[in-house]
């Protein structure tokens, strides 16, 4: 029931996203009909395409048409590859998802303990380290961090593989199950491939993690400080509870809600950074697909990509909303 009500709150965002992407498809530079007809088309051919694609009809009719195509999963066809956009997005999505989720896990695994440690000893060395990382982290352009890591770990140290996709040339992709190479190779018990995939993944994931670490560590520190300063913690201390129990059970449980809220913002960063990082590491995900299409002035894939990313983001925010209720019973009561 609560889930349904939350779902209803996501509907306006969903509608907004679809309307904006529709408007973006109509705002193509110049005459879209002339564009789709190609440079050699005659005036009559352009007119025919205009009619065929519905550009001569009213905006409302075009919008309903657009919705009908969307409902059928038709995002248009890429001009440069001739493939349906939806199909290419679906085959490339696991690569992007694996990269983004690994980056998020890595970032949470570093940021949350760092933030807690900084909050436990304000003004200490680790607190300063936390502050420097958070300020430097948001200032780093992701594409530059990626290149820097490639130079250090591939060119100088030689420990990382060449930044060329998800697997080196000697490995073959594991049988498709989830599309995540790490999981699929473990299922197939192919540990060489698992290792190869992991070593390709680690640099791009670290690049994105460095970027997203900052807001998470900052908010963890701030909300832990607030929780540790509250009266129930003083009571717990006075009652002689073990410090570890106070920190992790009493304080952290209460400090985690703002951290989860920030996760939503971090996802917005990560999905954007994804595009840049995929370009740097030649990662065959949907971001690099969109960039290639952009450079070739092939608009249908770009629009499909923007829509996919926005839908993913709306769903992620919904999931985070639902997570609130699980973490904090008070939120459930209010809803």
């Amino acid at each position: 029931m609560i889930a349904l009500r939350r779902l209803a709150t996501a509907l306006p965002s969903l509608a907004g996203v679809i309307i904006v992407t529709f408007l973006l498809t109509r705002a193509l530079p110049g005459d879209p009909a002339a564009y789709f007809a190609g440079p050699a088309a005659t005036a009559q051919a352009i007119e025919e395409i205009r009619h065929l694609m519905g550009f001569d009809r009213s905006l409302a009719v075009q919008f309903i048409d657009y919705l009908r195509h969307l409902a059928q999963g038709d995002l248009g066809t890429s001009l440069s590859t001739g493939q349906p956009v939806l199909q290419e997005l679906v085959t490339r999505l696991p690569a992007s998802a694996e990269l983004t989720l690994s980056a998020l896990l890595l970032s949470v695994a570093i940021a949350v303990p760092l933030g807690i440690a900084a909050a436990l000893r304000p003004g200490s060395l680790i607190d300063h380290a936390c502050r420097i990382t958070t300020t430097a982290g948001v200032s780093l352009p992701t594409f530059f961090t990626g290149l820097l890591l490639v130079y250090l770990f591939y060119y100088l140290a030689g420990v990382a593989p060449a930044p060329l996709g998800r697997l080196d040339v000697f490995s073959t992709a594991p049988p498709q199950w989830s599309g995540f190479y790490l999981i699929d190779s473990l299922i197939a018990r192919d540990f060489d491939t698992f290792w190869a995939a992991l070593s390709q993944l680690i640099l791009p994931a670290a690049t994105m993690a460095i970027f997203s670490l900052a807001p998470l560590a900052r908010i963890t520190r701030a909300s832990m400080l607030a929780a540790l300063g509250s009266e129930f913690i003083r009571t717990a201390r006075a009652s002689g509870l073990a410090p570890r129990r106070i920190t992790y059970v009493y304080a952290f449980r209460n400090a985690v809600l703002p951290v989860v809220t920030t996760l939503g913002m971090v996802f917005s960063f990560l999905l954007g950074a994804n595009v840049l990082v995929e370009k740097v590491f030649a990662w065959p995900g949907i971001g690099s697909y969109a960039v290639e299409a952009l450079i070739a002035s092939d608009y249908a894939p770009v629009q499909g990509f923007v829509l996919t990313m926005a839908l993913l983001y709306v769903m992620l925010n919904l999931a985070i909303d639902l997570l609130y209720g699980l973490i904090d019973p008070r939120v459930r009561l209010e809803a």
Partner: protein
Amino acid sequence: MTATLRHAGYVLGENPVTAFAFALFFLFALCAALGPSLAPYDPLASDTAEALTGPSAAHWFGTDQLGRDLLSRVVVATRLDLGIAVISVALAFGVGTLSGLAAGYCGGWIDRIVGRAVDTIMAFPLFVLAMGIVAALGNSVANIIYATAIINLPIYARLARAEANVRRNAGYVEAARLCGNGEARIVLTQLLPNIMPLMMVQVSLTLGYAILNAAGLSFIGLGVRPPTAEWGIMVAEGASFIVSGEWWVALFPGLVLMAAVFCFNLMGDGLRDIVDPQRRT
């Protein structure tokens, strides 16, 4: 006014990092103003005999694949990069603040429309939305500016709305209304100056984000075209040389880009210390 100045001086003296950020900002402003006359070489002049040489006394930052002096290119690019960021933030600030003020002060249907528009922008991953906008409107510097302005707009609109909402029945607003001022006049002459300090902090913070965003867009080939000197493009051009060990082509533009963003972020933190009344002693 003198109290504010004294307080600003106190904050700068207390916090040398903020003072450093302001100094760095003046350096960037100088490069932006005088760029071409500060640069030791012509940023577009190629010299194939000197191609891809590392940093030296003649070329402090080295040269790129066409033998262009990287220091000159980095310095000259400052005007373009800061220009894009400043214009787009100014647009976002103007439109966002005014619509947010109107929404917070008037409430009602204006509030609902502004709120819905802001929510819709925020429903997108912002960099992806910027990509989509530039792809749809056409690949030009002007459209990069519009796209960056649009994705920064919600921050100002939300902040201004929240502040106006809190203050719309404040004593000084009621007094102004009692004196017979019109609503538009109250918003512009009473509310706006009062929320200005808060907004300026946000301006500094979003400038850093705007620079990152514009450089990211030109890194993937949008907006600025080669051979124009721009930090994002220069990093993109240097990317292919990283794997063969010519690190300086990408490193120096990247470092300068990073320094600029870092500078604006630190300045934002420092400005917050200056304008935040709670920290004033």
